[in-house]
């Protein structure tokens, strides 16, 4: 059972702490922004969380970068307390170098590369057919 230091929170039966992405709710359509958050499993995705551990911006900026921030110290604490991480958070942490690289990251990259090669090949075929 997870032992927590704060007593202002509801006691859940069989619940556990997760580290997951929560939508930050800036009320702008088509502009997502995620907070990396330690929350109870049963809570709503955007509901009350225990602590914010970082941010993730899925849209690339003018320098073509996706910015992510982590509070490594507190993440270590929560993982030490027995928190689970969701798949996207695990992938991000793998990309950051904090966790080992997630196998799905590699698989997805390979699939995307295969897809790009396929579309390129079909485009080349279309161009030669047109000519």
């Amino acid at each position: 059972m997870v032992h927590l230091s704060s007593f202002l929170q509801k006691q859940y039966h069989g619940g556990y702490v997760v580290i997951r992405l929560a939508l930050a709710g800036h009320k702008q359509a088509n502009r997502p922004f995620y907070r990396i958050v330690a929350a109870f499993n049963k809570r709503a995705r955007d509901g009350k969380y225990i602590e914010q551990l970082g941010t993730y911006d899925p849209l690339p900026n003018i320098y073509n970068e996706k910015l992510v921030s982590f509070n490594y110290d507190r993440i270590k604490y929560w993982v030490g307390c027995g928190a689970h991480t969701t798949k996207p958070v695990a992938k991000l942490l793998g990309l950051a170098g904090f966790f080992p690289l997630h196998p799905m990251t590699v698989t997805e990259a390979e699939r995307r590369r295969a897809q790009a090669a396929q579309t390129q090949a079909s485009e080349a075929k279309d161009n030669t057919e047109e000519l």
Partner: protein
Amino acid sequence: MAAVRAARRLFRSFSQVKNVQQNKRILLRCSVRTFCTEHEDNALSHNAKPQFTDPAVQDILSRITGLELEKVFRPIKQELKLPEYKLMTDEQLNQERFIVVREPSGTLRKASWEERDRLIQVYFPKEGRKLTPHPIFTEENMKMVFSQDRHEDVLDLCLVQFEPDSSDYIRVHAATYEDLEKHGKYDLLRSTRHFGGMAWYLLNARRVDGLIVDMLKRELLQDAVSLVSLFHMVHPHSESAQESALQQATGTDLLKIYAQKESQRSGYIELALQALEPAAAEESTAT
């Protein structure tokens, strides 16, 4: 009922509630900037070159900067703002951030200095800094601004925008000081915080003649003397330094030795000294 239980638990455990550090963020992009402590250690030893931050050097530079009260307290246009109170934790004041970059090719590397500065500004915005630097820092704009004699504003903006050891900071400062020296407009910076920096730059480039001439023109004899003594501190192997050490010269004699040995405009300096000598003699008889 549950609320009462929770409240009781809370009261009992008040002292145990830990301080959740909401403000500490560590970035994905990493680099570790080491502070230049080695330089300070070297400066303490007798034979090493004196650094800008030495107390003796700073003392002399602050003396020659002068204190024109009218210029210092001149009214500056400022927006009226209510005072803001910010509580900063120690971590926020600290500059150590871990920033890494994952390239599309898969390599994980530390972020470069420019990326670091940019991202620290994104996550911990410093007042007055912009994400993209002010257009004033391009070559043509700087030339235009120098022709309008607004070197101070450029240097103030540069101080706010860039880190002291970034390449842009050094470039802007070098360009400003070069321009000032070319036109001899030393008086623009006289009572500002930038004067010491300019003097230091010229000293290291060994081109203090213009500055000494300017000081003598404005009859600032003491300042000229301290500047020459600073020059001897910084370049102890030059001829004038060795001469003055041999003769244990002080005051105007230092200036004369410097004029003979080092400067290219020795004639002008000697003339000016002769003009000021009666004034100096009066001072010494009065004291």
